[in-house]
């Protein structure tokens, strides 16, 4: 009997090893993907792309795919960012900046061969405005849909209801869809949204081959793309695969194995380890995303300006840089430096415990002795570590910190109302356009309810300046207003102004054509000029 069992066990082990060897024999090769003679660029990121409709939603991964499928009248390129003509070959505006006229290129075509004409532009803007989703907020207050006119097949005119100097900065974010394709799929007056969610109708450098929103998006390059290929036809990619890989460790593994050519959303320590490895090239650029700890200005101890000032002067700013292994820059103003109108605000708070105690002494809590709740998004490591820095920093003022991790939806819902907003919240904000209004608006009374307005600051002076600057056509006067806004915001200290973390990608050294533009969203990359230089 024993012998029988022994034989059985051996047999099972042999069978198991055989099965494992059989499976292993087919392991993947670990090099870039090919499609015939051409190569496929594989990009691994953690964020899905649930919707490709360009007027319905955007975030960095969604916009990267939208930018690849669709074209806009203009495009953001380079660092410092510039707006360059794209579907529009030129444009002009009236002296008061209320009438904008765009002249379209003659050769632009949608993927199905239809020309990209003024009517397509008019329809696309009308669609975005009437759907009242995604990009609509940028123009809805100044651009009634009926004020968009296709003057002739190559000219489109926008008449704004009031001057809007920032108008052009939003244009690269409005993609043009093919009205014929969209209108053929309209259901219940939905502007074709149900269809365009998962189907493309664009003129961009890539068309969709395969769309699996939770896992993979495979794009094919369009050989006859009207704008051409900057890397040359011989280097044009067959296509791009955006692969959704949620775990940073798995993204790292894919890059190391050569299964991904480029990855983003990389933990600081992983970046340090991988950047020096053979065959891997880092891209490390000063970012535009601000990190701040907003403080509730309406209730609790942080309603007291002196307490907020004391906290801001007790915080250990150098630790922010250490947490990011040096890949971050301290904010010198509420505005990032790249944004027009930026001024370095004198006396930005830095760690100075004497000053901190002075402010605290002037407050209603001169001895401290209270506890503050610090909320950060569950699962994010950096804000958690920053919470520990805060806890440590405020011990010197006899202030306790209760670090609470909450899911993003819960945190946002709590912050929407002053009564429920936590004492302190970690907040990242990425400006979507190169206009100071996008940042200044964070401190307008209207910002309350948005996640970046969790400070619930109410200052009529700031709100008035923001409103005035928004319509001021004279750039000098406008910048002067923004300078005042920046100083006033620092004076009122609704936040601990933190840092701008670098934007980082790791890629195989065969990847070429990467260009950094800070106006793209976090991990977003312009895929059009990219290629693979390897046999």
């Amino acid at each position, binding site marked *: *009997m024993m012998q*029988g*069992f022994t034989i059985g*066990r051996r047999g099972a082990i042999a069978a198991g090893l055989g099965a*494992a060897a059989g*499976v*292993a024999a*087919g*392991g*993947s090769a*670990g090099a870039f*993907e090919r499609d015939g003679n051409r190569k*496929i660029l*594989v990009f691994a990121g953690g964020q899905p792309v*649930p*919707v490709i*409709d360009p007027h*319905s*939603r*955007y975030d960095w991964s969604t916009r990267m795919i939208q930018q690849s499928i669709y074209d806009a009248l203009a495009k953001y390129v380079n660092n410092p960012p510039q707006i360059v003509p794209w579907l529009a070959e030129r444009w002009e505006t009236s002296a008061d900046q209320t009438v904008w006229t765009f002249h379209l290129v003659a050769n632009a075509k949608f993927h199905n061969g239809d020309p990209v004409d003024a009517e397509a532009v008019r329809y696309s803007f009308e669609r975005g405005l009437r759907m*009242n*989703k995604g990009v*609509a*907020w*940028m123009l*809805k207050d100044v651009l009634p849909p009926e004020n968009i006119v296709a003057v002739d097949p190559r000219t489109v005119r926008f008449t704004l209801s009031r001057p809007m100097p920032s108008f052009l900065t939003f244009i690269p974010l409005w993609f043009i869809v093919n009205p014929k394709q969209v209108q053929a799929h309209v259901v219940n007056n939905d502007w074709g*949204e*149900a269809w365009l*969610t*998962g189907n493309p109708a664009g003129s961009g450098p890539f068309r969709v081959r*395969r769309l*699996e929103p*939770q*896992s*993979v998006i*495979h794009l094919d390059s369009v050989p006859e793309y009207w704008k051409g290929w900057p890397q040359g036809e011989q280097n044009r990619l067959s296509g791009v*695969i955006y*692969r959704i*890989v*949620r*775990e940073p*460790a*798995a993204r790292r*593994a*894919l890059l*190391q*194995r050569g*299964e991904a050519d480029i990855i983003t959303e990389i933990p600081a320590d992983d970046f340090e380890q991988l950047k020096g490895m053979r065959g891997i090239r880092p891209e490390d650029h000063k970012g535009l995303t601000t990190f701040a700890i907003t403080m509730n200005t309406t209730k609790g101890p942080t309603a007291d300006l002196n307490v907020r000032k004391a906290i801001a002067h007790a915080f250990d700013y150098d630790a922010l840089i250490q947490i990011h292994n040096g890949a971050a820059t301290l904010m010198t103003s509420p505005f990032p430096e790249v944004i027009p109108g930026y001024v370095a605000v004198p006396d930005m708070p830095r760690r100075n415990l004497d000053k901190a105690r002075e402010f605290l002494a002037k407050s209603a809590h001169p001895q401290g002795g209270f506890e503050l709740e610090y909320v950060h998004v569950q699962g994010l490591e950096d804000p958690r570590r920053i919470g520990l820095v805060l806890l440590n920093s405020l011990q010197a003022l006899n202030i306790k910190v209760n670090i609470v991790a909450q*899911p*993003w*939806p*819960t945190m*946002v*819902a709590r912050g*929407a109302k002053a009564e429920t907003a936590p004492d302190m919240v970690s907040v990242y904000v990425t400006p*979507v356009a190169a206009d100071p209004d996008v940042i200044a608006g964070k401190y307008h009374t209207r910002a309350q*309810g*948005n*996640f*970046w307005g969790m400070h619930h600051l109410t200052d009529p002076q700031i709100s008035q300046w923001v409103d005035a600057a928004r319509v001021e056509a004279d750039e000098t006067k406008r910048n002067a207003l923004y300078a005042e806004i920046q100083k006033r915001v620092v004076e009122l200290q609704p936040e601990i102004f933190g840092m701008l973390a670098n934007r980082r990608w790791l890629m195989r050294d065969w990847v070429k054509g990467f260009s950094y533009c800070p106006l793209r969203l976090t991990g977003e990359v312009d895929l059009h000029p990219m290629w693979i230089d390897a046999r």
Partner: protein
Amino acid sequence: MALFVLRRLMLTGLMLFGLVVITFVVSNVAPSDPAALAAGPDATRDMVETIRREYGLDRPLPEQFVRYVGGILTGDLGRSIVTTRSVTQDLARYFPATLELVILAMGFGVLLGVPLGMMSAVLKNRAPDHATRFIAVSLVALPAFWFGILLQLFFSVQLEWLPTSGRLDIASPPPPFVTGMLLVDSLLAGEWETFGDALRHAVLPALVLSFPCLASILRVNRAEMIEVLSSDYVTAARAHGISRLRVVCVLALRNAMLPTLAIIGLRWGWMLGSTVLVETVFDWPGIGLYAVSSAIAGDFKPVMGVTLLIGVNFMIVNLIVDLLYGVLDPRLRAGA
């Protein structure tokens, strides 16, 4: 028997209604504003209201509940505010991937757990038994997400034997859709290369998912086998000259399988729930991943849909287990 089945079906229906009530209440008491999240950080208030109206979130909660229950009865689980698609459509897209993973994991669990449990019982308190029990305890204790990453690093990065994640190599087209389960569909299409590719991708996530189940089956089967092997009828069978192999593999195993079956039923539901972790680590596009993405975005209809689907599955499998009980144990049939 018919009465037994009818009684079980009625109970299942009641439990499902309870599940609907609980998931609806839990989803709606959570402090979150799905419309605001879907509208995006820059959206104005009226943009948020547009989305709220479109998805019926501006209606009173009782009305939303009645509509939701009415929808369920017609197979409509509402619309995802993130994907903008019908939850039923999304589930139809993602469930086959999960089912494939769970069937594979359950296969591993049963095919390894039952024989190992038998071996452990027969070799009670000897080295193989100790080793097996040690492994079983370890497998139950290992956190799936951690163990998954560890296996990825070893088998994918270090040895380069298996892919890190996904269901197929990214540039490989999936086989023609029949069941949505790639292993089955590739076999039906005769695409052997795709079958091998799908199998390589499934090995690690299925193993990680199977380990706790394997360990439970092993332990329960061992305990039952030890008890059965020491019973009088086994001694009587041996005294009648029936071979030990036949006694162990046929007579004893049949009786020891009753509690094992119960464990399989329980573990089925547990496994469906565990796919949330395993699918996230291995980027396996199933309902677990769908539920996680939706929960992060405060999109509750898909979370409720996934919960309901898992609940239905759990109940159906347990119903089948109850029926199999009757097949294996004639006394239960008589009792029913």
